[in-house]
């Protein structure tokens, strides 16, 4: 085959195929895969194939390392061997389409769901559920860490009247079938958490002075905060709670001062600017 048969486009397609799909792509209408030797020079010390292999090896190793740092708790939970296997398959299935590596793992939680080992079986194993939830949580944290938002920087006084309380600009609520937040916190504190048993859990994530705050909360608190995020006042959110959980109004009013104090301290609320813009 003559060298001149490759256009720039063909050449780049071919080389990218070598990296991303681990195998030579076929050259246009030709039946045989393009041989590396036809495209790449050999040198004093290396054959053409070895030259190409440097790029092939670096490609997967670099992106695998990125996945590892984006999903470090998951990598710990799965063990590095299994994590690598999933990461490699993922990169193969969803190669990056973004100019930034920050979104490299965006589809990873969905990919884990699609490829769970017990897919199609009636009896579901439970550990994949945990892994999928953990992956989703880790990715969400990386998004929240760098999302555009007015930073929660002002201190909200504990005695702020209820009518003035609104959810902080960065407040994200999660509901899981496993104790994901506790597991993540233990991992990030350098402990070595064991695979947990299923247990419904709720958590809130805030950002204050560009640092994330992670809090495990109770189910009722989750619904209460959700309701406020939908635009409800404290008063209406309390009413919602009474309806949803069959609580008595007196019970809710009794617990409220405690909630209010801890929510304000955790940075879930800010005081509405009454002066307006």
């Amino acid at each position, binding site marked *: 085959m003559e060298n001149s048969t490759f256009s720039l486009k063909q050449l780049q397609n071919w080389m990218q195929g070598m990296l991303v799909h681990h195998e030579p792509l076929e050259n246009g209408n030709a039946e045989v895969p393009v041989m590396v030797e036809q495209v790449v020079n050999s040198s004093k010390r290396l054959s053409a194939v070895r030259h190409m292999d440097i790029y092939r090896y670096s490609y997967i190793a670099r992106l695998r*390392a990125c996945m590892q740092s984006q999903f470090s708790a998951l990598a710990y939970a799965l063990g590095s061997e299994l994590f690598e296997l999933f990461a490699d398959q993922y990169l193969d299935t969803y190669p990056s389409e973004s100019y930034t590596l920050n979104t490299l793992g965006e589809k990873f939680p969905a990919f884990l769901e699609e490829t769970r080992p017990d897919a199609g079986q009636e009896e579901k194993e439970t550990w994949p559920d945990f892994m999928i939830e953990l992956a989703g949580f880790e990715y969400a944290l990386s998004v929240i860490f760098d999302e555009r938002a007015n930073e929660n920087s002002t201190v909200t006084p504990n005695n702020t009247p209820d009518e003035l309380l609104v959810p902080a600009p960065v407040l994200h609520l999660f509901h899981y079938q496993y104790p994901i937040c506790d597991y993540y*916190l233990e991992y990030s504190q350098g402990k070595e958490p064991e695979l947990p048993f299923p247990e419904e859990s709720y958590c809130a994530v805030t950002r204050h002075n560009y640092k994330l705050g992670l809090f495990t909360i109770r189910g009722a608190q989750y619904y209460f905060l959700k309701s406020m995020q939908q635009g409800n006042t404290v008063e209406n959110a309390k009413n919602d709670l009474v309806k949803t959980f069959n609580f008595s109004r007196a019970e809710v009013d009794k617990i409220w001062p405690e909630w209010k104090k801890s929510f304000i301290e955790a940075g879930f609320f800010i005081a509405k600017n009454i002066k307006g813009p």
Partner: protein
Amino acid sequence: MTEQRDSYSDVIRSLPNPGLGLGLRSKHFNYILEHNPEVDWFEVISENFMDSGGRPHHILRQLAERYPVVMHGVSLSIGSTDPLNKEYLTKLKLLAKEIKPLWISDHLCWTGVNSLNTHDLLPIVLNEESLKHICNRINRVQDFLHRPLVFENPSTYLTFKQSTINEWDFLRYMTEETGCGLLLDVNNVYVSAFNNDFDPVHYIHQLPHSRIVQMHIAGHQHCGTHIIDTHDRQVVQEVWKLFTLAWHLTGGVATLLEWDSNIPDFEVYHAELLKAKQHMSSIFDMELNPEKQEYSEEAVSNPVNFMINDIVVN
């Protein structure tokens, strides 16, 4: 077109030499803000900040008020046969408007086709066809950004049979055709020269020295049969020698030490950069005799600091 090119060319010629700079790494954020170290300028990876609405952006804003900043990109993909990425260019322009860099640089490479990104700086076929293609794209990007770009020679690990132009000539033609500037990475010259059997001294001699506005120096990993550009250690003597040569030929330009993996404490990083001072005044010794080094087996090229945010949890 010619007028535009000449005006870009004039801008390149009039760019200042801010001195010795360091790459901004998240590991050093706190140190820099607390200590205001006497670094002449910082280079920031554009992609790490153009989408940031959190801590990285917050830090960069403060840094840009205190130090001159240069924006160094990795995703322009000037050599790709894909269309230019408008979204990317728009964000690049916005970031530049905000932090007012001395200049914006990227690499002579392509990063992917068919909308994929390999996140690597892949080698260019060096021939008439690609030269025309690339110059055309440089013109369009420069006109969009209203400023000349600066292009760096990447580390390469292979050459193409279809290449007909030497890299140093290719870079010179680019500057002549578009008015762009050059970022000479002397470590990359050393790495590419070893991997592809050319003489690094000859390469540096052949470049258009008046078009070079910046240099990179960095450490690499020698694997015996080839060298990988890892940016994870100190600069080897041979690369310092090339730096000395380039310093004399260019008359001295902005110089930056890259360190992207195994990143040391800030003081260590800064001290390694300051070694450049003694190499500016030394005499270039044509003899390149590689010192004995440890060979490592599997190294991964780390062309730039592709940063995944280190999440800070309270």
